[in-house]
């Protein structure tokens, strides 16, 4: 916001220059804009990040759905949407219009107020998450000094929407979905936070901007990304799995597993409320991808990123490129993986992810205290690999076996 505050007067000057050409009202408006009062400047500085968040990310959401359908089509030997506009580019708009004009059905026995409230609440935390995601060098809507903690706090709140939706529908499938969602989100929160603790320890700050800044430098602004550290790599995998489970993406989409419980907590939703649930879910998943990028993949850092207008634009490009990469990764996984079961999901969270994230925190400690980098590399890698092998041996299900088949004579 501070950056925006600095830029805002210039922006307004430019606007006033444009508006000056208008007859009648042009002159006074231009005069007002070229020399704005302080409150107006503040209002503009507040409005710009808000406008950015509520316009850019829903746009990304709309086209994520299109990319998802196209990519899944490719994976499945299909073409995907191609009727609306060239390459189906207007498909999201058509979808939106369709969902807006559909009948809004509320079950007769539903708890009407909570049923109405749930989809609204589903969107709010997802949008709030974006307020701490830095999209470029120094460009973050709000630079909170509790950034990461804020993100986690907000994302737990999204559970409530799922629960409310499932409970208020008075549908058994919805209720099962809601309970699954709550159990899943609460248990994956823990390894996710612990994986983030490793990064916070390394960066020495909870602020997302500071974490992204800590990964700058090195060769081409690339080598200092946390993912290129042993602990960072492990943390990245842990966090990505956790983020996928948190936002209920395949293979952890059990709260809305369509082959088991129809659509989970949003079984009884139609029309725009359904769209809001989808919006909230996708926005949360995009925001989580953004936080993953910020914490492990160097955030906005990349070749050419830096301060100034050009560096800022390049850094924005890198951020959105990485964000797109993470989104495509989730789509790819969705197209190729079967879903896990509820108990497997839980035991995976508690028996593998949680111990591994604690081990990872110890690894960061070692990395910090061993001054000689090559030794630190070897020691942390060995530590992590040994623990990984031990844990995977301990957690391996005795059920899984390689089978030989015989033939009748």
């Amino acid at each position, binding site marked *: 916001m501070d950056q925006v505050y600095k830029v805002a007067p210039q922006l307004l000057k430019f606007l006033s220059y444009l508006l000056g050409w208008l007859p009648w009202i042009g002159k006074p408006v231009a005069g007002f804009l070229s020399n704005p009062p302080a409150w107006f400047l503040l209002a503009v500085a507040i409005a710009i990040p808000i406008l950015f968040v509520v316009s850019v990310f829903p746009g990304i959401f709309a086209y994520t759905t299109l990319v998802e359908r196209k990519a899944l089509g490719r994976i499945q*030997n299909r073409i995907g949407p191609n009727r609306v506009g060239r390459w189906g580019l207007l498909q999201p708009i058509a979808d939106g219009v369709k969902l807006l004009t559909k009948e809004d059905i509320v079950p007769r026995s539903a708890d009407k107020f909570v049923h109405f409230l749930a989809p609204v609440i589903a969107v709010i935390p997802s949008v709030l998450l974006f307020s701490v995601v830095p999209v470029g060098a120094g460009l973050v809507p709000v630079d909170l000094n509790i950034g990461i903690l804020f993100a986690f706090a907000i994302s737990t709140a999204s559970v409530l929407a799922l629960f409310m939706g499932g409970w208020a529908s008075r549908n058994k499938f919805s209720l099962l979905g809601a309970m699954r969602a709550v159990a899943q989100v609460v248990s994956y929160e823990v390894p996710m936070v612990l994986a983030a603790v490793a990064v916070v320890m390394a960066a020495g700050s909870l602020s997302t901007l500071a974490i992204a800044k800590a990964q700058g430098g090195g060769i081409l602004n690339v080598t200092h990304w946390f993912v290129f550290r042993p602990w960072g790599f492990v943390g990245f995998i842990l966090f990505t799995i956790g983020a996928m489970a948190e936002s209920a993406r395949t293979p952890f989409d059990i709260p809305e597993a369509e082959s088991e419980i129809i659509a989970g907590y949003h079984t009884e939703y139609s029309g725009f409320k359904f769209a809001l649930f989808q919006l909230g879910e996708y926005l949360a998943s995009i925001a989580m991808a953004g936080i993953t990028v910020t914490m492990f993949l160097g955030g906005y850092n990349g070749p050419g990123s830096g301060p100034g207008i050009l560096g800022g634009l390049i850094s924005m490009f890198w951020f959105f490129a990485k964000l797109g990469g993470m989104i495509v990764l989730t789509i790819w996984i969705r197209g190729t993986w079967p879903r896990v079961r509820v108990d497997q999901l839980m035991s995976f969270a508690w028996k593998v992810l949680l111990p591994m994230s604690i081990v990872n925190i110890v690894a960061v400690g070692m990395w910090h205290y061993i001054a000689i980098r090559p030794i630190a590399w070897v020691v942390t890698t060995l530590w992590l690999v040994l623990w990984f092998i031990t844990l995977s041996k301990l957690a391996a299900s005795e059920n899984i076996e390689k089978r030989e088949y015989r033939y009748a004579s």
Partner: protein
Amino acid sequence: MIQPLTDAKPYTLTPGSNGVIETQTLEVSIGPQHPSTHGVFRMDCVLDGESVVALKPVMGYLHRNHEQLAERMAWLGSMPYTDRLDYFNSMTNNWAYALAVEKLAGIKVPDRAEYIRVIMAELTRLLNHSCVIGFMLQDLGAWGTPLLYAFRERERILDLYEAVSGSRMMCNYMRFGGVRVNLTDENLATAKDIATRFPRFLDEFEKLLTNNEVLLARTQRVGVLPKELAINAGISGPMARASGVDYDLRKVDKYGVYGRLEFRVPLGDIGDVYDRYYIRVLEMRESIKILQQALRDIPQGPHIAPEVKLRNFKIPPGDGYGRIEGPKGELGFYLVSDEGGKQPYRYHVRPPSFINLTILEDMCVGHKVADVVVILGSVDIVLGEVDR
């Protein structure tokens, strides 16, 4: 000893019977409108949390009076109706009915027709098994990708069906004493092409999924069907063979020309969902072998017995049971002919998916809801056949 099946097994929950916290059971009706019941089928589940305590399959939503219709109709008239039994495998349904009538009427089928029937039946088996696996993985949550891979292969087989019979799914291809239309050399070349290409698809499919950790964890030791129960409940087909029952009508009856062809019958040991999945893969590989032999050995000659009249076809009084090894299991037709012999006095179908479905509860109890749909998927049902 099998327990009574459909009539609600009395379930009692003693306090803390699940070992942790005493909870209330939740009755959930999965179906008839549900994305993964493979049609209009319903399972009344009693759930304790996520675990299944009792399960009652409810059938009959697709009842179409198949048997009564056939009893009001000339013998050949119900041939197209058999297509609609198991609408995935119209060829084998035709064959089973034709076989029963031929047995009753004592008709000898020419060699070329027998070979054509074998080719069609094995193509049907490939089609059915690949789609079943696709559907089962869809139920596992693999979101359509394996299914659409299977459908890509199915397309090619359906194209061949269309070329020979004029219809992609409702083929109505077999006749008493042979088949309706002879296969041209072009058709045979297409079939050969399918047989040579199919292994590649299987390899690809297996590479993608057979060793997938999630798939293994989800399917192994899930929905175990013990060998004794499988025998007692009259389970047949790949499901019985996955439980280790060495029962394949192609070997037992040696109907058609199966006696002359060389193939093996794969058997599983545990009888869980994974075995049922993998037995089908192995059976497809054997089917390809059969296809190649049949395509190599197919003789020239008439495609239908010349002495069989299609019009005014009559059968002397008597009864007979004709059965084949359909892709889903033993498909049998029991026919009784009485005075006049213009139409069946009694016409009864032994549908494999209906019989295989009876032990659903025994396989599901104790597992999670998520497993129920997978187990149902591994049973391989088609509601047209279950409800008739």
